[in-house]
């Protein structure tokens, strides 16, 4: 893909292997802003809605949104994606170390949102969520703290991806007025019903602060959350036949389509 020579090692690899559906939301976020250049580009006019043909342009546009317009002209490109994610973490008051990998900073942002959402949940909702996550020991309700869920999130894999997907979906609802159009596993739909309310409230609270912070964050915060979700999705093991995310690395058959899993 050579629509632009601008490349970012933390952003381009993720966007350039994403599908048209995955990129649809990002295009909607950036094209919502008056100052965007994406929709004026020849590649966009030629290929839209096949967004994967100009994923490098989408990456460039996201980075441009993260920087001051005059500084972008002087630099020749927007700030690095890592710098942009650190800015978003600052804005959402997520603790992070700027020398850490991009995934760690993204996780810190998601953990901050998740903590806020779980604080909004009742004990019964927490118990239901834990059951959906495969709790076999029937943990005492009073002992379920936010750190239990954060621990599950930090463990990575399928559950971590699902929590991120629910957050990204709620952000899309808040910004665009509609959720993500993704093919999802059946398990996710059960989870979504438990987490949608609390995460929605947490995001509403966050959005009020973002509204006051200025227009640039209205684009960069949703973009960073969506890219974090895509990174988790693309780093998960998936079925070669139906592309469903596999909950367990030891599975021999896909739980969605029944196809044998090849190593």
């Amino acid at each position, binding site marked *: 893909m050579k629509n632009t020579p601008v*490349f970012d090692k933390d952003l381009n690899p993720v966007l350039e292997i994403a599908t048209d559906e995955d990129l649809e939301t990002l295009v909607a976020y950036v094209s919502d802003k008056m100052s965007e250049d994406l929709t004026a580009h020849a590649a966009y006019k030629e290929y839209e809605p096949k967004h994967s043909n100009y994923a490098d342009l989408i990456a460039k546009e996201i980075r441009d949104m993260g920087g001051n317009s005059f500084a972008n002209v002087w630099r020749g490109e927007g700030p690095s994606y890592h710098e942009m994610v650190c800015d978003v973490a600052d804005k959402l008051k997520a603790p992070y170390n700027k020398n850490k990998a991009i995934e760690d900073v993204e996780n810190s942002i998601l953990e901050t949102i998740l903590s806020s959402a779980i604080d909004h949940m009742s004990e019964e909702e927490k118990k239901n969520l834990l059951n959906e996550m495969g709790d076999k020991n029937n943990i005492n309700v009073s002992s379920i703290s936010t750190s239990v869920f954060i621990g599950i999130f930090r463990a990575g894999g399928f559950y971590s991806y699902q929590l991120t997907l629910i957050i990204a979906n709620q952000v899309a609802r808040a910004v665009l007025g509609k959720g993500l159009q993704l093919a999802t596993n059946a398990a996710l739909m059960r989870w979504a019903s438990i987490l949608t309310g609390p995460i929605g409230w947490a995001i509403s609270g966050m959005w009020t602060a973002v509204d006051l912070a200025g227009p640039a964050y209205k684009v960069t915060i949703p973009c960073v959350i969506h890219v974090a979700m895509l990174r988790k999705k693309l780093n998960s093991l998936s079925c070669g036949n139906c592309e469903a995310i596999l909950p367990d690395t030891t599975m021999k058959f896909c739980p969605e389509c029944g196809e044998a899993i090849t190593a």
Partner: protein
Amino acid sequence: MVMSDSERQKKRREKLKSESQKSIFVRGDGGEFDERIRVYLAVQKLAKEGMLTKECIDLIVKTSETVFPTPELSTRKYINKIVYEYLTGNN
């Protein structure tokens, strides 16, 4: 000596830029005496002329994923995609 904020930021940007775009020094103008460039142009030529079997192209693509140690699955998928496109000319 303590660096100012702008100096620190400039240093960080230069570091990130150098990570993303590393220059390769080659022998001769355009690398005509460089064995590395000759190998990859020869492989590309053979692949585009259909002289490499699909299995051979797949093997080159798969090996290229781990030439530099890459733990992230998404990065490996990206390398797979760009090397496959390079060899088959599907840009």
